[in-house]
């Protein structure tokens, strides 16, 4: 499947500056077909091709350089306190992007579909969490005592994740399964349709305005201060929970039987079938886990920002998708790292050129990645013999 079909689309220079034994595969086939576009420039072609290959090979370094520069710029503008606060904000935002990005990358890895509805599963999960909290009176429980808070968290996380997981499974079953062997554009269009459908339902049910979750008051207080920067318990909770979930997922995918079934199905579906792996169940499980992580992100989001709206998942989803592409679509660790990098770019890019530019900046980065390094920073490594 993906392994083989990805190779022809691998971008020029996509092999990276390595010894040649490791090839990064443009799994998504997102990259330019050939480098020949530059022949347009006639005599300048060799120079441009060299520039292209330099940027392509050093994309990660260039991006990191820009991030460090913008952090430093923020320091010059507002001093250590502003810089520290922004780093904190970036990590909190990045944790949420990372969790959502993992869902995109897992689904892409296994069925080569950019699941546009994923961002809306995030939003819907936010409403699930509100519903669960209201129905079970968790808001008063959570604010009553520390034990009450732990209990409320222990209820709202698994229940929202379960509900979101089932939503994801249902979406795959209804909208994507029958199109699995159809041309790739078909499920992609369906995914956009599912996205609009979910947004429409939320708009009608929840209204056009922000809905306060009540979870903003769950966790309060400053844990400690780093200089003038106060680190709240919420901040620790957000980043800690995200990291915990990501490591748990990593262990799951590496070690468990189902995790191995997911990896092997992503690498070669036919071979997985021949090993007796139930492909439908494996794909359902992938959707379940990806959606459950989006729900965890939504609960974290609710606790941190305090309100949700019918369409927040749309932009947030595309930004998280950018994080997945940055990390190398199909690569779970890449999506995690990509999420935090995008968080940094969003916050520090914004603090330098103005917050209203943040999203434009992210999408400019998306275009740059697709042009210069469609395999992403980490790609999906396929070790081949020279």
């Amino acid at each position, binding site marked *: 499947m993906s*392994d083989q079909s990805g190779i022809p689309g691998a971008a020029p220079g996509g092999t990276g500056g390595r010894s040649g*034994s490791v090839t990064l595969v443009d799994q998504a086939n997102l990259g330019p077909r050939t480098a020949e576009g530059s022949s347009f420039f006639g005599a300048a072609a060799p120079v441009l091709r060299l520039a292209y290959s330099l940027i392509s090979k050093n994309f990660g370094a260039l991006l990191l350089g820009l991030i460090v520069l913008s952090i430093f710029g923020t320091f010059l503008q507002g001093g250590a306190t502003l810089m520290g606060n922004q780093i904190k904000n970036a990590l909190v935002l990045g944790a949420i992007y990372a969790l959502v990005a993992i869902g995109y990358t897992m689904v892409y890895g296994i069925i080569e579909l950019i699941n546009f509805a994923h961002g809306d599963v995030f939003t819907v999960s936010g409403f699930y969490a509100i519903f669960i909290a209201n129905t079970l009176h968790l808001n008063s429980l959570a604010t009553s005592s520390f034990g009450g808070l732990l209990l409320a968290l222990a209820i709202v996380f698994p229940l929202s994740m379960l509900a979101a997981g089932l939503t994801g499974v249902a979406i795959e079953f209804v909208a994507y399964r029958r199109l699995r062997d159809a041309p790739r554009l078909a499920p992609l269009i369906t995914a956009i349709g599912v996205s609009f459908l979910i947004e429409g339902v939320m708009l009608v049910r929840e209204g056009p305005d922000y809905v306060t979750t009540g979870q903003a008051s769950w966790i309060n207080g400053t844990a400690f201060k780093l200089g003038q920067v106060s680190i709240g318990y919420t901040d620790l909770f957000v980043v800690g929970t995200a990291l915990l979930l990501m490591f748990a997922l990593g262990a799951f995918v590496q070690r468990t*039987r189902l995790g*191995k*079934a997911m*990896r*092997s199905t992503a*690498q*070669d579906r*036919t*071979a*997985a*079938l*021949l*090993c*007796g*792996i*139930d*492909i439908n169940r494996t794909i359902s499980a992938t959707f379940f886990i990806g959606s459950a992580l989006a729900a965890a992100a939504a609960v974290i989001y609710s606790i941190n920002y305090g309100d949700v709206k019918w369409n927040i998942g749309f932009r947030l989803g595309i930004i998280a998708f950018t994080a997945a592409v940055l990390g190398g679509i199909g690569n779970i660790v890449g999506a995690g790292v990509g999420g935090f990098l995008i968080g940094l770019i969003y916050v520090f890019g914004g603090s330098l050129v103005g917050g209203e530019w943040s999203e434009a900046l992210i999408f400019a980065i998306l275009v740059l990645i697709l042009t210069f390094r469609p395999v992403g920073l980490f790609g*999906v*490594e*396929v*070790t*081949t*013999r020279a």
Partner: protein
Amino acid sequence: MSENGQPVVATTADTSTVTDKVIDLRAIDVYYGRVQALTRVSLEVRQGEIVALIGSNGAGKTTTLRTISGLISPRKGEVLLFGKAIQGIGAAQIARLGVGHAPEGRRLFARMTVRENLDMGAYSRGDRAGIRTDLERVYTLFPRLRERDSQLAGSLSGGEQQMVAIGRALMSAPKVLLLDEPSLGLAPILVDAIFEVIREINAKGTTILLIEQNALLALKTAVRGYVLENGAVALAGPSEELIASPDIQRAYLGM
């Protein structure tokens, strides 16, 4: 073979019981979209046999194995495995029934280690002790894989990859093993080694259906053979008879 496509060598008389037939294809027609790949192909493999499937490129050999494994369904005709019709039960289920398939192109999990690939072969088994015994057996058959067990499968040499492909199929403890050109791209000395292993596997009780470009080697290894031409069975019979057939000698043995 013959002008009208009729077998010139008669199939051995059907005196066996139904349960004796591990694989029983009955006049299957298989299509890829509108293109017909197999026409009324009938083929049997009995318990304990090595059967060879030969024919030129595009004759339909791989398609035949894919049909047996349930990767593709016949439009007409019947596929019986272990005496039962398997219509529509799906490839994963067929694998669990005891059909091991080392497919064309090897299809290893390139980003998994040798050991993980072998483990995936045993995916649907629960008997830990049996799995350990079989892993040991694969490592004994292919000592090279033991040395490489934590290397990514995608970085192995072609021959090593072939060993993993066969090993992975063996790890399911199959009752019948389908091998699609196990010698492809191997050095002559390795080809002999692989065929030695194939005989050894068979001697331990596994039935084998084998595709092989080297018709002589295939027929010498097998008790019976089928010759496919343009998606139809042109000839079938005991190996010695096929080797002795002038048509076969001219077309496949280069004599």
